[in-house]
Structure formats: C-alpha cells, structure tokens
C-alpha cells in the first residue's frame, strides 16, 4: 500500500490528501489513472500511438510505483488471453492497444464481455489499414462497438486520467461485470501535453472500494467449476440457457448507464472534478441546432460554437462520452431541444455511407417521433486535424438544414485540405 503514496506524496502528512500538479500527455495520464486503480496483472504489447503508455506502465513497475505483475507477451492476442486468465483467478487487470493491435486481439477481445470479466483496456484510437497509416481516428474503436465492451470517449488529458480510474469501478460493479474501453484520441490526446491534477491516492483508494472480479466465474481449485461449457444448440436446455446468457449481458450493459452516472458523481464528490458521464450539452438550452461530437474534437467544436454564438447563431453541442451502452435517453433529452443536427465522425460506416455516430444518433432520434433534419460529417481520419475553421464550416452547413436543405451524402471535412 505504499507504492503510489511514495510517488505522489513522499511524506505522510496533510499533503497526503492533496492532489499534485503534473504536466503530461494523455498516455502518461492514462498510466497514472491505472496506477491509482492498483491493478494486479497488466499484459502489454506496444503499438503506435499507444506505445508510450505501456512504456510509462513499465517504468512505474520498475520504480515500484505500480505493484503489479507485468507480462510482456508476444502479441495483443496473448495480452487479452493472459488477462482473461488472470481475471478468472481474481485479478484486477489492465491493458492498452489500438488499430491493428486491436484487430489482432479481436478473437479473445470479443470473449471478455461474454465471460463477464471486468477489465480495463485503453484504446488510444487509430485509423485502420488500408491505406497504411499510424495516426489517430476512431475506425478501430467503431469496428468493435458491437463486441460488448463499454466504451467511453475522453475529451481531455485530465479526463483520460479520471476516466481510466473510474472505469475499473464501473466494470467491476456487480450489476455490470463487463470490460471497459477508455478511448483517447491517438496523437491528439496521446501526445498532447498539458497540466493536470493527479488525485491523492488515499482518496482514490476510498473511492475504489473492495475488489471482487471473479465471484461469478473462477478458475480456482478451492471453488472447482467448469468455465464456458458448450452452450446452445437446438434442443435440451441449450436454447434458453444461451438466450438468458445473452440477455443478462444486455442487462449488464443497460445497468452500466446508471452505474456510469453514479460513479462519475461519486468521483466528483470525492475528487472534486465532475464530468457529464453520458452526454454533455454545451450551450444547448436556447439552441436551434446542434453539432454532435465525440472525443477530443469537441474542444475545437466548442471554440467554433463560441465564435458562431458571437455572430448570433443559436448553435450548441451534444458531446457523446459514453458510446457503449448508447445513452438513448440522454441523447434524446438533448436532441429534443433542437431542430437540426450535424454529426461529426472520425470514422466511416461503409454500409450506410455515413459516420457511425451519425447512424447511432438517428437510431435514437426515431424514438422522438418527429423528423429531425440531419447531416453526416466525416473528418479527422488518419490523424488529420478538424480545426476551428472546419467546425465553423460544419456549423454553416448544418444551419442550411433549418432552411430546408437536404444532404444526400456525407460531407468530407478534410477532403479539400
């Protein structure tokens, strides 16, 4: 119990409960968020732009800041596999990956939610091949949105740290028991350095509470059981058993909406920083129309909205933090305030010729039972920047919807950069 205290507050005195200011990038912030959660087992494999994150973790282990088993395995597939094993033996587990690494991890990755194993895996999001690229984008995370992991997208470096720690408690909640992806934008958050507050470890320890990750499924000679017998088929108890497994997994996902809100509230009460846990509304109450954003792009979007407001445009922002489970009610509370939306994606839904956030938002909006004019914007692919100027154009294009304009196709933000 001395490890993090040593790093954060060398002397046990009043400063023990003080936070400490750091200047760091998102990858280091994630590593600090992990340290505060005190994992038992971490398995790592480097991949751009995640690599410095696992380097920080390794350094923290080397220095004794994190007291955990660190497994340097031979690939992401084994990363996820080793962590599943560790979790089934009772460990709090962590890793980080992205892009091709996530693709290689996919086979065991899709199994973690089915085993109902709480686990945190940061996705330092990266666009996917091909074209060959190593830069940021949401295509990797969007490809796994149906895998059953909770997904939260961060806007700032501070939020990366805070959300990483919170994610352990969210996933381990007995009503949830699911793995969590904490998504931070590759390049923009991973390498963007800024001043942040590192919470005091004793406060976080009190926040985290007791760990019990394998009460439901254990590989333990003291509690012998078979993990994952063949289940299903067309006869006998299989069909209902399989359906009930799936349903309970969906129930856990829905429970997560409540738990994510409660956990963010408790974090705010104890640590002093509050976030909109599901959906953030920015200058929305008197808005005629809104941008829908996700991740770090929201900073530039807010600046552009402020400029537009100065020009008299009644525009606001609906930022999605929790993308899985999709916060239908919170989104619709926000959507009900506006007459049109422009949804900005950093990835593509090939089948629908639009962005995935756009598609999901419209799926929620159909429950409003009114027509909501909308446009899909796609930008920020493969590390390209969505600037304030880009967002000003997005605002202009979205405003056209109020005048009856209709877009048949998505608008490609960086296409003419």
């Amino acid at each position, binding site marked *: 119990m001395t490890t993090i205290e040593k790093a954060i507050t060398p002397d046990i005195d009043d400063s023990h409960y003080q936070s400490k200011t750091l200047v760091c990038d998102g990858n280091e912030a994630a590593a600090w968020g992990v340290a505060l959660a005190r994992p*038992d*087992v971490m*398995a790592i494999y480097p991949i751009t732009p995640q690599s410095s994150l696992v380097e920080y973790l390794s350094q923290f282990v080397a220095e004794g800041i994190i007291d955990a*088993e660190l*497994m*340097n*395995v*031979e*690939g992401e*597939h*084994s990363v*996820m*596999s*080793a*962590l*599943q*094993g*560790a*979790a*089934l*033996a*009772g*460990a709090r*587990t962590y890793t980080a990956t992205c892009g091709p690494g996530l693709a290689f991890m996919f*086979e*065991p990755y899709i*199994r973690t939610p089915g085993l109902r194993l709480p686990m945190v895996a940061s996705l330092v999001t990266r666009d996917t091949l091909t074209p060959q690229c190593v830069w940021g984008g949401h295509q990797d995370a969007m490809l796994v949105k149906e895998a059953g992991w909770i997904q939260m997208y961060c806007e700032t470096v501070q939020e990366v740290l805070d959300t990483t720690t919170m994610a352990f408690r969210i996933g381990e909640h007995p009503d949830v028991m699911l793995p969590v992806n904490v998504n931070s934008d590759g390049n923009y958050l991973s390498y963007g350095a800024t001043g942040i507050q590192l919470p005091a470890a004793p406060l976080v320890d009190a926040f985290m509470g007791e760990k019990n990750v394998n009460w439901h499924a*254990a*590989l*333990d*000679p003291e*509690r*012998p*059981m*078979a*993990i*994952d*017998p*063949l*289940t*299903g*088929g067309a006869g*006998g*108890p*299989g069909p209902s*058993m399989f359906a009930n497994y799936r349903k309970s997994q969906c129930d856990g996902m829905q429970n997560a909406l409540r738990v994510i809100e409660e956990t963010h509230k408790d974090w705010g009460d104890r640590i002093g920083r509050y976030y909109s846990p599901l959906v953030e509304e920015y200058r929305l109450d008197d808005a005629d129309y809104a941008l829908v954003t996700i991740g770090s792009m929201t900073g530039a979007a807010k600046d552009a909205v402020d400029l537009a407001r100065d020009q008299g445009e009644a525009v606001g922002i609906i930022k999605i933090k929790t993308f899985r489970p999709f916060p239908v009610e919170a989104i619709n509370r926000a959507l009900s305030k506006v007459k049109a939306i422009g949804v900005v994606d950093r990835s593509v839904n090939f089948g629908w010729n639009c962005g995935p956030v756009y598609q999901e938002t419209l799926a929620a909006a159909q429950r409003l039972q009114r027509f909501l004019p909308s446009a899909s914007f796609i930008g920020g692919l493969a590390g390209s920047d969505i600037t304030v100027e880009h967002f000003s154009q997005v605002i202009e294009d979205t405003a056209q919807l109020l005048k009856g304009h209709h877009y048949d196709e998505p608008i490609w933000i960086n296409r003419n950069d």
Partner: protein
Amino acid sequence: MALGYNTITFNPDKCDGCGDCMRACSQAKAGTDDPVHSRIQILANETPSTGEQQSPIEMAMCRQCGDPKCVSNCPAAALSKDLSSGTIDWDSSKCVNCLLCTVGCAFGGITYNVEVGHVTKCDTCDGNPACVKVCPHGALEYNTSGSVYTRIGDKEDLFVPGLSACQGCNSELLIRHTLRNVGSNVVVATPPGCIPGMGTVGYNGKTGTKVPVFHPLLTNTASMLAGIKKQYNRVGRDVTMLALAGDGGVGDVGFQSLSGAAERNEQQLFMCVDNEGYMNTGMQSSGSTPAGSWTSTTPVGKEMQGKRTDAKNMARIMMMHNCEYVATASLSFMDDYYDKLDKALAASKRGFAYLHVYAPCPTGWRFPAAETIEVCRKQVESNFVTLWEFTPDQGLQFTRSVDKPAPLADYLKQIGKYRHLNQDQIDHLQRRVDNQVKSLKAFEQTSAVS
C-alpha cells in the same frame, strides 16, 4: 487396492530361437549352460495349425498369474503369490513333490527338474531378469507398466464416467491417468478439439471434470494459463497449470501463444495430444499430419494422393525453445509416460514443461478400435515415434532405444489412412524416419551442457 506388476514379455516375431536366454537363466540359477536348469524354455511351436498364421516359436515360462492355478492346486502351501512383487514363490521346505502344480499350469511355467529332483520356476531374478538382458533381438522385455496401476490405481479418477469419446480413443485413457497423478490442485485448460468434445468442460452447464477446467480458444491456451498462474503467484498460492491440447491448438493456430509462453518460461505443463489432424471436426489435415496421409482435406484421387508435405515435429521445435523439460511419450509405454509426467510436473513449478503424447485415432486414421494400444506400440517400435526427454542441462536423452527398429511399412499397413500409399511414398516416409533418428542422435551427442 489395485494391483499390477512388472512382467517379462515375449514377442515370438522377434525371436530366432538362439537360446541365449536359456543359457543365461541356467547360468544364473545353476551356474551351468545346461538348458535343463533354465526356467525359460524356447520351443518349436507344435500346436496343431488352426489355419491362421502362427509363429514357429513359443515360450514356456511362469506368467506370475493373478489367479494362479499352481497355487490353488498345491496341497502343501508351498506356492504363494507375493503381493508386493507379484511373483509366485516356491518354498522348498514345504514342497512334497506331488507335482500337482505342474498339472495346474497351462503355460509350462512350473516343471519338474530331474537334475535337482524338484520343481523349478521363474522368480524374475528379483526384478532384474537375466534372460531379458542377454536377448540380442529384443524379443524379451521386462515390462514395468503394470506397477503404474499399483501406484496410482487408488487415486481418485477426476474425470467423470460415461464421456463420449470414440470407441478406442486413447485421449480419455490419457486424461484419466494424467488427472489421477496430477491431483486436484490444478487448473486444466482444454482448447477446442476432441478433449472438450468428449465432455471435459461439459455441455449446457454440466461439467465432465472434477477440477477447475475451461475452454480456452484454440489459439490462446498457453497465454490464458500464464495469466492465471501470475495471479496465483501474486497471492502466494501454488496451483498447477495443465494444458491438454490437440496438435492444431499446439502447432497450428496455437503456436504463437505457445512459443511466447515457452520463451517467457511460464510455469505450466503443456501437453500436446497429437492425433495428427483435426479429428474432432471430421479429420481435416493439420501441420502435424504426416506426408501421404488421407484426411478429409488431403483426399486421395487422380491428382492428389494424400497430404503432400511432411509434418512439423513439434516436440523438437519446443526442445529448441530450451524449455525446463520437453519429452515425448506413448500410451503403450505407460511407465515411461508416468516417469515423464512426474518430471514434467516438477519442471512446471520452475518454468515451462512440454509433453508430446502421440495419440493414434481409430476413427480418423481408420483402424479397428481394439488396436489403439497396438498401433501406439508399433509407432514406437518402427521409430515413427521416438521416446526421449530433454532438459537444458542434460540435453536430449532417448528413454527407449532407437536401434534395430521394425520396418515402417509394418506400421503403415495397419492404418487405413495410409492404405493408398505407393512405394515411393512409403520410401519417403521411411527416409524421413531414418533422418529424424539420425539428427536426434546427433543432437543427443552434442546437446548436453555438463
């Protein structure tokens, strides 16, 4: 109490009637070459022909029967079965020379010796039989498998009865033996294949194993076990990690995680149960399928005569990882297997241990279910399978001689999946077997560090 004993075995096909064994016995028991004193008698087979092919040679010697008629016939209690060694002892001080014992024995195992004036019989030279040592053809062997059953027979069978393995499958036999010896302080990983297919991890909420057991993916067995072990080490608990994987989960898609775990020297016992293909899903070819084999994905037709490429030798590949312990084993040599299982378990407490067990499949290889153990034995006797063990310090050591192997063709002709082989294919396989043995022997000479 389960009882099984060591025994002298005789293979008439290998015997040329030279009589060395009889001379050795006479020397050991009477200090003379006179075969009248020999308790083993090699004889011309004078049994009337039944039409079936039969050996021209037979052997008369005490079988140390479990229900000995010589003992029950003896009116003077001069004969008795020693329950610790299994031999039938003759007590000269009680014998009344009635010879009723010789009437009871159907094997010519106890006979009247006119030179000494009383019956004599084999006492196995107290477990070190002189006849076996001198046999120049390997026709006589001292088989110690039986003692295995005495040692482990009373241990709990941790596998439930009534599992649905194919008739004649040796994997079920292997699992029962292995779990008995490993005990219950274990986590067992059985990736998809025949082993979970027979119900090891169970169906729809019911399990086939009395210890913690799980389905890893086909691809990640070693990694999952590594993670489990890390957490138990962290909390200070000594739990054995055991993988029972088919050759696909070892050498094909399972290979990356296996190689990584071996390189990291993860503490686990990883066992490959090699049936040379994907037998559970309909006998498709794998990287362990030998050249020429018929499988459902290397069929026999005008353009293809079975698998076109050789199998990879996973045991050798794992040896090159310099693991704590690597060995090959066959279920026809159970004492050898148990010896290696003990060593592998001990090694798995220090680091990575790998056992490659050859598992002929009656269903997929097309041979009668009753012949599984015989096929196992012929694999070894032909050097198609070699039995050896490896440690980083001692290097490779054969645990059974690879000299004077039987022709490979004798093994191949017993198995349906090789039925179509032409002479070129048979010659190719024989050359490969010879080359494998040659290079293993060379490695045996050079691999020991100390």
